[in-house]
């Protein structure tokens, strides 16, 4: 319980220091909003095909980037050492950092969704599945961002490292193109991407229609990816956090 309170303190301080700043929130909203609006302007009937994927993409880029930026920034500034000197289990530290990055990602995605609902009338027919997509995606991507951050010293190195992973999965996870249209040899790659299941859950939440897997498989896979990301982050923190 005491460690949980400390994790919450870390999260709250990060929100206060970094995530709560208006420019950061605006930065997270502008790009996906413009992308969806440009699709809407071109063809108002098809924007719902892309909106869940773009919200998932917002989570992917927002969470991995911000989690990595905060940790590499603190490592450079020496303030990360303050956390390592405190009586914190590594899991507490990871939980605290991931929770604040996740809160930022979910807040940005929710604000984007709310904007789309108000401006374009985007429906959310299944809010629990939509919320599950946001929570699982935000948690998983934040943990992956932390794992990348602890491996490197500079922010640009973290971004480069993550781009090897982020851009390829963007094109195989159903963000812009339904999985059914992927060539058969790419489908196994899609199944190995956490983004695939987040996109599916958000689709289910927004439209109520499954594009391929259905809610049970997507939630289970999302949980497994969340767990795997946590294990990876903890293993890398154990090896590299003190370097």
């Amino acid at each position, binding site marked *: 319980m005491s460690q949980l309170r400390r994790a919450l303190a870390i999260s709250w*301080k990060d929100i206060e220091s970094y995530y709560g700043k208006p420019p950061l929130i605006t930065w997270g909203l502008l790009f996906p909003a413009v992308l969806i609006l440009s699709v809407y302007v071109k063809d108002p009937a098809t924007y719902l095909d892309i909106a869940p994927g773009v919200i998932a993409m917002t989570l992917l880029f927002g969470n991995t980037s911000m989690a990595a930026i905060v940790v590499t920034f603190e490592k450079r*500034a020496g303030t990360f050492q303050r956390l390592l000197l*405190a009586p914190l289990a590594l899991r507490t530290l990871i939980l605290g950092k991931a929770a604040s990055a996740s809160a930022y990602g979910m807040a940005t995605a929710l604000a984007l969704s709310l904007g789309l609902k108000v401006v374009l009338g985007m429906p959310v027919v299944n809010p629990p599945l939509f919320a599950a997509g946001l929570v699982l995606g935000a948690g998983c991507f934040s943990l992956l961002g932390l794992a990348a951050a602890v491996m490197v010293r500079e922010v640009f190195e973290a971004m480069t490292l993550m781009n090897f992973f982020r851009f390829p999965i963007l094109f195989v996870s159903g963000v812009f193109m339904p999985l059914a249209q992927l060539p058969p040899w790419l489908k196994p790659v899609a199944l190995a991407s956490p983004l695939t299941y987040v996109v599916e859950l958000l689709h289910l939440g927004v439209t109520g229609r499954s594009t391929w897997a259905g809610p049970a498989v997507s939630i289970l896979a999302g949980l497994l990816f969340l767990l795997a990301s946590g294990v990876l982050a903890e293993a890398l923190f154990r090896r590299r956090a003190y370097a």
Partner: protein
Amino acid sequence: MPSTPAIAVSGLSKSFGSLQALREVKFAVGRGEIFAYLGPNGAGKTTTIRILAGLLPRDAGEVSICGADVAADPVAVKARIGVVPDASNLYPELTCRRNLDYVGELYGLGRRVRTAKVAELLSFFDLADRAGTPFGALSRGLKRRLTIAAALVHDPEVVFLDEPTSGLDVPSARALRERIRTINRQGATVFLTTHNLQEAEALSQRVLILIRGRVAAQGTPGEIRQQVQRYNLLVVTFSSTSEIEAARLLRACPAVLQATPRNGAWHLEVTEAHAALEQVVAFAGGEGVRISGINTLTASLEDAFMSLLTEGGAKGGARA
């Protein structure tokens, strides 16, 4: 007071690739002691602190803080120590008060305890009027004070201070040294690294000198001086120095090993000051000259340090 030492280290070794940073380091620090850990740049001082603070794994050896092994139970050990690194590790965007409060949260202190402790520390370090100032806007000296305050939020049993007065002006450094004494008087064991040997001598009860990762000497400052001081130095001024011949003086005074005239006085290297004094007084009487001044010079900690540092330095150790 518990009987286990505050810090017990034995056989501590650490390498970075081919560089052996620490070799079989062994020392113990008693509870309530101020212990100075000295050495030139690259001697392994910060590496030792990082290992003791649980920031770096060791290659070999035993390390115990208040009876607990930092590698086996890092969370428990970290709760009992406060570490002040040589560079600041506080958050520039947070105010002084919020920085201390946040550190208190990391140590699991309740809100009421935190509030009281933060107010107490801000007052103790003369920072109460800067409580609402962001840490990043403080001067170097004030930053140093707040960094030390942050290490004390949880009332640690052992405080590690890495170069605490480095870069501070004389009044700030002196005030900080007085605060370190107060922290120690309040019960904390202080483990101090510094390049300022006068500071180490003035503050600490015991000193360890680390050279190239090995313990070169340890003990009280007096014991360290004794280790390198092979003789005492007497400076004797006769009423008529020109009439004294070194050979005659040495013959008459067996306790004097060497006699050198310097700046109107005789610098005498002696084995035993008391016997030498008696012999010199008798010699002066025999020569018909008066003694107008006698001073004894002893090696400083800095002399001892330099002597240990330079090969064969012990031979030329005695200076004021």
